[in-house]
């Protein structure tokens, strides 16, 4: 009975989509509300005027004088302290207060003290690598920005996380805010923040914190909540106060997971600090962006490489520190003594190096006499040229097939049909898939998008998001099944998946731009690369969590591998598949809008134009808001659909 209904639903959808396609052909290019990039609507003009009024009030409105400006000054001051220390020459000094040798020595020392000597060697090598790439100053800026954002994030995130871990009411209060922060694409809040805090360090730091504070809160609260309750109850039963139980039982037991949260916070902050170059954050994002703008793949690759080195270094060092917290049993006395000796020797060396790097300029500014950046950049460029010119069937051919056979038809259906038709079709689809409530929500959100006047661009972005998600799901589910079924595949792919998740999305843009040029497809390919790891991980986890007994039963009944996959493992992990699709789509959307930078058009392009052209500021802000509406709509519909599944 249920199967029949499902089959009928399948036929209904085939028919529905065919009808949709036919209608879009009939009413092709009518009432699409297409808007030239330089054109404003009356609504975007109003927003633009409002934005102008806000920035005009910066010096005298009490909101600014007593709220936004002090925050901005505080954060700028905080960031500058760290930057002056390691990144920029200051106080009439020719080099930063602590020169390159000192920074390397200090970071190596911290790594040694918190984990193992191998990790310290890795840190030294990677930092030297960044310097050799000619990226020392930018690397230090990125580190300084990341450090500042992480310290501020933890200062807020850990106490709030503990609070949410202890109180259900607080958790309930936080959850919707945290959810929203997680689905918000980067580009959405950059422009509004810049409006209130001006472009630069403060906005970049706050934007980063919007992204990383929720992660810190979530993990800390989870760490407190997932504790074995028995010791906590025992502590209460012995008459401990709440404070005593927290400080003597809950926090010590949750320590490892909280440190793991630091790792996640650092990685989130790093990826965001790089993107925040869009609002003039100092650091490695700057050379990436300038390389993207002039489409110099080689130079972008060099800067991207430095980002990758920093990312791997921070990830390994902080997770190694977290792993060390795992055992509750401390090392023996002799181990401790040896460690203490090592640490004090390293400390003395680090101190000496730091002092030397302060006074000797050659140890302060990274030497630029061995340049490996130019050869790497040139080699990359010639390799990309080879790919594009000599094996174009791999690049251009694939790009064209997807663009003409998949992208264009869907774009015709969504963007180049009358807006009210698309809207109606979406509402009907939501009604069938997810029910009345969600259909109504879809109607409201899409109507709001239409009301802004940016309907056409929203549909362009949506088209690319849908296509990228479809492709992501095809590849991601296949890989996820593989990873879920085979331990070997899991250990083979896991490093790539982990790396993929810790890498800032921006970095992917560089090589993909080289391959496919500034087109829609570049954005889609970047979205796919960025979101595949999360899809593979969720699907793999789902497949793996199918009870062994189910598979044994199916095998005993004589199923072959294909039958086991299609009839047991996939249906049993339906929820994981739905979750993967939901997460994949949110990840894709976030990247697709960044792709506005490399010719994907749509809302992302408007946001970027808005941040550079004053007369388009309003339109850019509206586009950011539309991205938000789109994200919420996608998330709600996908979640409701997966609840129904």
């Amino acid at each position, binding site marked *: 009975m249920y199967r029949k209904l499902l089959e009928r639903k399948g036929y209904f959808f085939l028919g529905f989509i065919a009808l949709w396609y036919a209608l879009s052909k009939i009413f092709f290019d009518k009432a699409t509300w297409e808007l030239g990039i330089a054109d404003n609507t009356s609504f975007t003009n109003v927003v633009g005027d409002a934005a102008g009024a806000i920035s005009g009030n910066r010096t005298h409105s009490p909101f600014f004088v007593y709220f936004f400006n002090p925050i901005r000054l505080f954060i700028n001051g905080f960031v500058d302290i760290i930057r002056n220390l390691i990144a920029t020459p200051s106080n009439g000094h020719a080099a930063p207060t602590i020169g390159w040798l000192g920074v390397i020595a200090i970071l190596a020392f911290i790594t040694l003290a918190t984990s193992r000597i191998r990790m310290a060697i890795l840190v030294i090598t990677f930092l030297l690598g960044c310097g050799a790439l000619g990226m020392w100053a930018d690397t230090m800026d990125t580190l300084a920005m990341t450090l500042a954002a992480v310290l501020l994030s933890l200062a807020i995130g850990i106490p709030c996380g503990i609070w949410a871990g202890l109180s259900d009411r607080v958790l309930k209060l936080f959850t919707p805010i945290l959810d929203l922060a997680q689905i918000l694409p980067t580009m959405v809040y950059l422009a509004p923040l810049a409006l209130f805090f001006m472009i630069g360090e403060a906005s970049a730091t706050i934007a980063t914190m919007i992204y990383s504070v929720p992660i810190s809160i979530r993990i800390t609260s989870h760490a407190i909540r997932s504790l*074995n309750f*028995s*010791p*906590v*109850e*025992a*502590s*209460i*039963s*012995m*008459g*401990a*106060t709440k404070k*005593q139980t927290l400080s*003597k*039982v809950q926090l*010590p*037991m949750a*320590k490892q997971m909280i440190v793991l949260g630091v790792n996640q916070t650092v990685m989130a902050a790093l990826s965001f600090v790089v993107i925040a170059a869009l609002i003039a954050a100092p650091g490695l994002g700057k050379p990436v962006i300038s390389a993207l703008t002039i489409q110099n793949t080689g130079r972008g690759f060099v800067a991207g490489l430095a980002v990758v080195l920093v990312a791997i270094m921070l990830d390994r060092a902080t997770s190694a520190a977290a792993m060390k917290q795992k055992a*509750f*049993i401390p090392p023996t006395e002799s181990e401790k003594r040896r460690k203490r000796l090592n640490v004090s020797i390293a400390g003395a060396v680090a101190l000496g190096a730091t002092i030397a790097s302060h006074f000797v300029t050659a140890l302060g500014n990274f030497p630029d006499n061995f340049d490996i950046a130019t050869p790497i950049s040139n080699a990359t460029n010639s390799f990309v040229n080879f790919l594009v010119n000599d094996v174009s069937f791999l690049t251009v051919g694939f790009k064209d097939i997807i663009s003409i056979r998949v992208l264009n038809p869907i774009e015709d259906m969504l963007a180049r049909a009358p807006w009210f038709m698309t809207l109606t079709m979406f509402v009907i689809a939501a009604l069938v898939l997810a029910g009345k409530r969600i259909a109504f929500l879809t109607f409201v959100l899409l109507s709001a998008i239409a009301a802004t006047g940016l309907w056409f661009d929203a549909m362009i972005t949506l088209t690319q998001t849908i296509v990228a998600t479809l492709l992501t799901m095809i590849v991601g589910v296949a890989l996820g099944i593989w990873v879920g079924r085979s331990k070997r595949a899991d250990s083979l792919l896991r490093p790539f998946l982990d790396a993929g998740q810790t890498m800032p999305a921006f970095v992917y843009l560089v090589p993909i731009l080289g391959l496919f040029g500034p087109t829609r497809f570049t954005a889609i390919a970047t979205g796919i690369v960025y979101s595949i790891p999360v899809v593979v991980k969720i699907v793999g986890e789902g497949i793996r969590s199918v009870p062994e007994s189910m598979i044994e039963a199916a095998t005993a009944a004589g199923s072959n591998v294909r039958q086991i996959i299609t009839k047991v493992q996939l249906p049993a992990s339906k929820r994981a598949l739905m979750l993967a699709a939901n997460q994949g789509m949110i990840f894709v959307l976030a990247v697709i809008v960044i792709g506005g930078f490399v010719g994907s058009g749509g809302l992302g392009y408007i946001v970027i134009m808005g941040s550079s052209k004053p007369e388009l500021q309003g339109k850019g802000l509206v586009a950011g808001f539309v991205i938000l509406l789109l994200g919420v709509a996608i998330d709600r519909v996908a979640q409701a659909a997966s609840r129904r599944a």
Partner: protein
Amino acid sequence: MSADSPMIQVKNLWKVFGSNPDKVIGTELASLTRSELRAKTGNTVAVRDVSFDVAPGEVFVVMGLSGSGKSTLVRCMTRLIEPTAGELIFSGEDILKVDGNRLRELRRTKFSMVFQHFGLLPHRKVIDNIAYPLEINGVGKAERHKRAQEVIELVGLNGYSEAYPEQLSGGMQQRVGLARALAADPEIMFLDEPFSALDPLIRRDMQSEVIRLHHELGKTMVFITHDLQEAAKVGDRIAIMRDGALIQVGTPAELVANPKDEYVANFVRDIAKSHVLTLRYIARPLRSDESAATVELDADLIIREALPTVLEAHRPIHVVSGGSSIGVVSAEDVLALIASVN
């Protein structure tokens, strides 16, 4: 307070989980069964109108299957879970009426608890686990370690004071749990299924350990278990609990000899009667064709322990209570009881 007044008095204790617990107690809803009430109001009665006394130095066992409310009952008695209604009097003080400060003080000094899953702090050495209740009460380090060392010796943990809980077996971990509960020298100990997570052999050792500690220290104990053998072994009296209510309270012998209903009878069926019943329960009048032996046995002697004497006598033996005979037992009587299929 006189010596024979109870250490603990539980009077009409209720615990109702749900949104509107007060709407249940004292209304006709209170007479509904658990499932009826849940269907009607969404509330769950975990503890239903429970009353009992525990004498000083007594081991009082609360026994029931999982879901019978025994764990909730013991948590209500320590106010880890707030009871919905009732009175809970420890040495004359109603602890349901005391404020947070006084409650903490009572927890620190008057009673302590041992947990099924031990509840040890993984990041602390054994000695610091045991000293924890003293530490939170503000006792200095030297003094609390001295006291902890005493308790370590008492429970047989010598040589383990510097170990971490993870390095110990389950049985040893629960010894740490016991030691911690004894550290502050409380008057009352609550033991919530303390040995349920242990292997059968170790469980038996630990039961004997509790009995030994009880003999040495004479603490009043409230012992929760789902294992009737365990209940019969350690308990002076046993309370049988079902669906939140106490069905019957009595000594092991009383429960075996006079089960109040089918449920209790089913429960006690597996207990070897000769291990809990005393001669009093099988004494019968001397038949005219018999002549009694010259030896006499006390009526409160457990049958198993009387066995050698009865078998040797070859004749019925008089069972004496308060100086006069209440009847006789013969070898056949005893063997018939041992052989009887329950």
